[in-house]
């Protein structure tokens, strides 16, 4: 029933009517012992297809809107993400690139990214990062944390001062919330340029389609285009915009067509 090929560099975007059930078998994960739900398969597939960016080394992350466009039932996606989050297989981060953007990252990828960011910061006091990893990350699966709770969890490792929290913010691991001064968001460090590319790439793709006469384009032609402003590939952006409802796919006799949703 499944006609997609397993080779990541040539696998095309699946049409939305197919269920994705072909796992990426040529990866050696430590996750092979987990049960494969539909969401899990989609997550692993997208993680494998994450584009390689030359200048910045970023571990693969997946946007929640991309999941919504790959798996049919959104309630099932939400519930499975919740159970995966509770089992600490992946972490959810709220991004500041627009309303309700969430990024999902597997736990090992996040820890790798964190270590890389911490290494590049030359400071004397590296202890606070260890406490952060051991006490805070492993015990708090939510995307945000309050000031008091952060202090109490960090002090399980040792004596904490306010400068330590500033160190964490400087490293990019925490961000203050704009609405509430007592709460922090967890953040993925060293990801700023990629997020900038994300917003600009979205705008560029939408404007590309909006300039067309009927605001639509064949998927086959669209996939071959390259975006100027974004280091992420077009398939990444397509999935994201389809999931967030800005674009929709229409089945035509000559293939899939992507159209801008007008409202």
């Amino acid at each position, binding site marked *: 029933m499944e006609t997609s090929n397993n080779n990541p560099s040539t696998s095309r975007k699946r049409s939305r009517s197919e269920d994705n059930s072909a796992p990426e078998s040529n990866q050696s994960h430590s996750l092979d012992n987990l049960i494969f739900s539909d969401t899990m398969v989609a997550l692993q597939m997208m993680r494998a297809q994450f584009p390689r960016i030359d200048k910045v080394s970023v571990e693969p992350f997946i946007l929640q809107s991309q999941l919504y466009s790959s798996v049919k039932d959104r*309630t099932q996606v*939400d519930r499975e993400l*919740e159970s995966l989050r*509770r089992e600490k297989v992946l972490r959810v981060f709220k991004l500041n690139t627009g309303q309700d953007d969430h990024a999902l990252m597997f736990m090992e990828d996040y820890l790798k990214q964190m270590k890389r960011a911490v290494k590049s910061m030359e400071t004397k006091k590296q202890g606070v990062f260890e406490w952060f990893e051991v006490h805070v990350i492993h015990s708090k699966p939510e995307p945000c944390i309050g000031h*008091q709770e952060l202090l109490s969890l960090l002090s399980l490792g040792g004596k904490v001062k306010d400068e330590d929290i500033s160190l964490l913010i400087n490293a990019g691991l925490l961000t203050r919330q704009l609405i509430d001064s007592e709460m922090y968001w967890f953040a993925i460090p060293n990801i700023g340029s990629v997020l900038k590319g994300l917003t600009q790439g979205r705008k560029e793709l939408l404007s590309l389609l909006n300039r067309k006469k009927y605001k639509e384009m064949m998927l086959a032609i669209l996939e071959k285009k390259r975006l100027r402003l974004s280091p992420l590939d077009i398939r990444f952006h397509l999935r994201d915009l389809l999931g967030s409802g800005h674009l929709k796919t229409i089945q035509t006799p000559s293939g899939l067509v992507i159209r801008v949703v007008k*409202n």
Partner: protein
Amino acid sequence: MWKKIGDRESGKLRPNSFITRIRSNRASSLHLSNHKELVSSHRGSVNSLQVDLTEGRYLLSGAADASLAIYDIQRATDYEAGGLIAKHKPILVDKQHQNAHKYAISTAIWYPIDTGLFVTGSYDHHIKVWDTNTTQVVMDFKMPGKVYRTAMSSLATSHMLIAAATEDVQVRLCDMASGAFAHTLSGHRDGVMAVEWSTSSEWILMTGGCDGAIRFWDIRRAGCFSVLDQSHSQLGRRPPLADKSTTKVSTSKARAPPRKVGSGSSSKHSGNSKIIKQTKGSAKQRLHPGLLTSQDRATAHYGAVLGLKATEDGMYLLSAGSDSRLRLWDIQSGCNTLVHYEIVRLQSSKAIQLDVSQDSGVVFLPCMTSIKAFDMWSGKSKMTLQGHYENVNCCCYSSHDQELYTGGNDRQILIWSPLKQIPADVDECDRSTGQPLAADEDNWSD
């Protein structure tokens, strides 16, 4: 259809399931009504609609030009197009009244016991209680800010309180019996946009604020007893019985004890709050145990809460937020059931009024210029009703007739109903009799 009636007669089909089936069939096939129309004389956007709770006969609408209108939705005033379209003109429109509101009316609700009174709230900081028959203002309450919503409990037998949600952080309860304020509920950190009484208890009030928090108040006690947190979730309609591993992380944050609390645990929590205050370094007073939840900063939405609606059985609460999400909460466990409703965008500046159908589990939500009907349990979009020219603000579903009334910024009130069969031989009859065909000869009154 006839077979089903025969089954019901012979006892094969239970009457309740027969009724539910017909109602849900009708509710899933709503279209812009081809036989009914409301002649709206509002000159401003329609902000609030409500069908009265006693008979389901009168529709009350409040608009942004300070006008109110009441429509009789079961009896038409006149017929058009050879008796096919029933036009309903308003019975009462009120703009030039000397005691009328000065600015936009944001909410108009019926007195739940009968249609002799109705309550309106407006951006001119006033809540007025009107007598329907004489169209006089009988009571006037002045609020400290713009009134966004008012609500009265339909279950109440021992109180006549109007809960008022304003741009002030405190929710005020106005007593109709005495004409004074009963008490205020503090806890929100920003204006309150949505307020709803519980459908299972006359003492429980639910409010949603611009800070994104949804709080549950028992009006007999100080403070709220529960704040809904979107990160507390359960995977399913009800929490699993055996699994007691709750996701509520017990932190050093002071939290008000959930639901009814014994005096022992409340002293423990007040002890906690003392410790918190000392570590903060500033000498603050010890907080009343009822106000402990003002420390709780949990949010139900990432933006403001725009609308709340409780289901009739009192078990679930729907909340719409300006982060373009509609969430379904299990009231008893206080958890997010994680049902995902496919919404692209919701208008974020005004409160919206959503509605739930009683039996079939359909949620009607105004999304920008259309109304989306979702299946409540799976989150799938069943219908998108496009008809308004501008943003839709409010919708009201009458389960009596399975009709949906919607009002929007284009000053129109549209009726959506299951399509009615138009008889094919209508033209000949019209010419021969010369009378409106659908004129109801039983429609007379002394």
